[in-house]
């Protein structure tokens, strides 16, 4: 009885299909990318995977509560621009500006969460509106890419700690620890309740508004981390540096089994979704596909990944109805 439930629980787990997809892509990637299992390639890969995974986690959080964040990419850009325009060579300045960057990311998310929670516009439109606001502000501060990020600062991102933990992986571990902690916090349980059924949550005495703001703030933490990674990666401020992340994060979260309707899915899925997207970009790059086809292929593979996710549902529907 119990074993049966465990097996069914595994198969019913929303991230099970994406896990299969992940295994498949790792095999494919290992064939195509030379030295896939070497430490150097592992380190290089995670420099690009980490921000993708982080934005996937950020997006997953708001999708779980029943919203979506289209301003995520523009938010990252704005944070990089602010940091690059203020940072000086002194250690104190680096620390302060980093803190300011994190605070800015949290504020941007809070702004979204506050309006969506209290005023109640559709999150899609609300965050689209704020995304153009953030983009506009970033352009105002820095019309062309530039600013100054001290070498000592951005070099940290490429470092390896204790000989075997690359900094991007360390950042990921911090994020994972944060996820684990969240899993045991009351407000996080409420996040699933609100996403699953707002009415039921309200009837259970949960503050729906507060929970939505909480979700956006949690998302803001991941966005802040992602923005720091982007700064480390590009070493400049660029009003367009975050653009690609918005829809990539939505795709990653959904591929990872986060239901777009909210309340269903988990962070494991979001992480898998982020890695899948990273592997996918890798594969397309190393497969020597001309740039014209690259984007096209990416689209095809995303659809395939979504089909994977739909298999259990389709099977259920065909058998019962």
């Amino acid at each position: 009885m119990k074993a049966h439930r465990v097996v069914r629980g595994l198969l019913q787990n929303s991230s099970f299909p994406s896990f299969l997809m992940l295994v498949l892509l790792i095999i494919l990637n290992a064939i195509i990318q030379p030295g896939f299992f070497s430490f150097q390639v592992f380190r290089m890969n995670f420099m690009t995977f980490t921000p993708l995974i982080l934005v996937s986690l950020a997006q997953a959080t708001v999708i779980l509560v029943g919203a979506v964040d289209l301003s995520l990419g523009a938010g990252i850009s704005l944070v990089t621009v602010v940091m690059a325009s203020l940072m000086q060579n002194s250690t104190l300045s680096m620390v302060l500006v980093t803190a300011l960057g994190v605070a800015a990311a949290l504020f941007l998310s809070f702004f979204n969460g506050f309006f969506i929670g209290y005023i109640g516009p559709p999150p899609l439109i609300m965050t689209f509106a704020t995304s153009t606001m953030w983009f506009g502000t970033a352009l105002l501060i820095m019309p062309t890419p530039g600013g100054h990020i001290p070498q000592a600062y951005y070099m940290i991102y490429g470092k390896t700690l204790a000989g075997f933990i690359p900094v991007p992986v360390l950042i990921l571990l911090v994020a994972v620890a944060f996820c684990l902690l969240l899993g045991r916090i009351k407000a996080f349980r409420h996040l699933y309740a609100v996403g699953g059924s707002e009415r039921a949550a309200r009837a259970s005495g949960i503050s729906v508004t507060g929970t939505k703001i909480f979700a956006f703030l949690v998302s803001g933490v991941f966005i802040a981390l992602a923005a720091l990674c982007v700064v480390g990666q590009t070493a400049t401020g660029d009003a367009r540096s975050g653009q690609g992340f918005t829809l990539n994060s939505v795709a990653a979260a959904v591929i990872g089994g986060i239901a777009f309707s909210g309340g269903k899915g988990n962070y494991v899925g979001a992480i898998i979704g982020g890695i899948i997207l990273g592997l996918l970009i890798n594969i397309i790059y190393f497969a020597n596909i001309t740039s014209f086809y690259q984007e096209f292929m990416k689209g095809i593979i995303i659809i395939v990944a979504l089909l994977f996710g739909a298999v259990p549902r389709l099977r259920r529907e065909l058998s019962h109805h």
Partner: protein
Amino acid sequence: MASWEPRLWPRFLLHKEIHKESLARMTVLEAKHIRKSFVGVRALSDANFSLRAGEICGLVGANGSGKTTFARIVSGLLTPDGGELRLYDKAVNLRSHLDAERSRMAMVHQNLSLVPEMTIWENIALGREKTGSLALLDNRGAVAQAEKAMETVSVKISVRERVKNISPDEKQLVEIGKALAKDPRILILDEPTASLDFHQVESLFRAVRELKERGVAIVFISHRLWEVARICDRLVAFRNGETVGELDFAVQERNEKLIIPLITGQEVREKVRRRSAQREKEIAGRGERGYALELCGVSLDGARLTDVSFSLRPGEVLGLGGLQGQGQEEILMILAGYLKGYSGEIRVDGKPLALRNTRHAIRQGIALIPGDRQKEGLFLEHSVLSNILYPKVSMHRGSFFLPRGRYQKLASEAIDTVSLVPPNPRVIVSELSGGNQQKVVVGKWLALSPKVLLLNDPTKGVDVGTRQNIYDIISGLAEKGTSVLLYASDNEELIDNCDRVLIVFEGRIVKEIRGDDINEERLVVASLNVEHASPDGRTP
């Protein structure tokens, strides 16, 4: 826990041993002249209610009489426009549900307050999760508490099951368990039995009586008047948002007939059950057309249905009885084209037919009236007119443009037939009361004049007046030759309306009861499938 007590209970009452008597008689809840309006609609105009500790008080009234609104005000989900509310002899201003919970009040919601994607134990703990050190969740404690709660309502499913995977009646019991887990002093049950069969109702009643013994005050809201008459010590009736009467069963007889006039404001109309001999003649008179519907050895995988065979004559009302979830709904779902992958043969008008999908079934003249009107029966945000016309429009063939004038005439005829209140086709369905919504569900199939009407618990959560109304429409259709297959979780409805009743047990038809033999006792005995206990061995 101790913090609220001195505030809510007068100090002398805390010595419970000495003042047990006075505590038992204490009024725990009193509402005076409560008013509440929603955008333009007055839901409550003058609601008065009082409740003593250790008492079960029924709250009855037609749909839209304000029972649920009242319960939601008392439990703090809604703020009243005016009036006075006293809890434990102290005037309160209930701002939110959380406040109500601090006063040890729990409500079992009619529209379930469960989150489908979460497990049973997560749902039971929802909103009042206990935290240990560092504000981390105490999951083990929550699981244990949930297990205890499920034991009180005698449900034997793992609390680790997700709510989406359990049946509607189990959901209802989980909902009740959730309220009990709060260890309430005041418990409000809003239609707790609507989706339960009599077996489950019995175990619910046992739990309710136990709570009463422990001094819990209980408000029992139900349309099933015989249940109210059985379990309650007292009852209060609402009509059009006002308290119109009260019955105290300590002095008055426990009789449903005394309750009905309070609800309807009219004298009881004696139920005219048609003489079955006469009905038999009527149906036989149409005999030359053969059977409208025949099922031969229909089975569904996983023993959900095994070898189901029956036939339905034109104009006959055939009931499906038995305990909840024995396969009655599966039979209806197969016939409506929802469930595929069955084996066996289905014949409509004598012709074998493989039902492909719902559309195909509707084309064959088979219409299903679902029990869950909010989910399957209606487009809540659309007008009555478009709801009534959807089936007609979707079946439209021929001209490129829709014949609007003719359709509007059809719709107003349907509105007439079901006597919708208000009789306005432009009204948005979600603004109608529950009973009238159900009338729209019935009405939308009239335009297609179906050959076979499938009814899946059509009067669930519908008041007595509307219930009669709906069954009048159905018997009217049957007289015109429509065959009706009726599943009702409530035996009374089967007794009043069916020419024959088939008892379904674990996916098989175990007994057929016809005509004058259809009565409560026989139905119950047959439902339990204890054949030898049957008073006589007459099998058809």
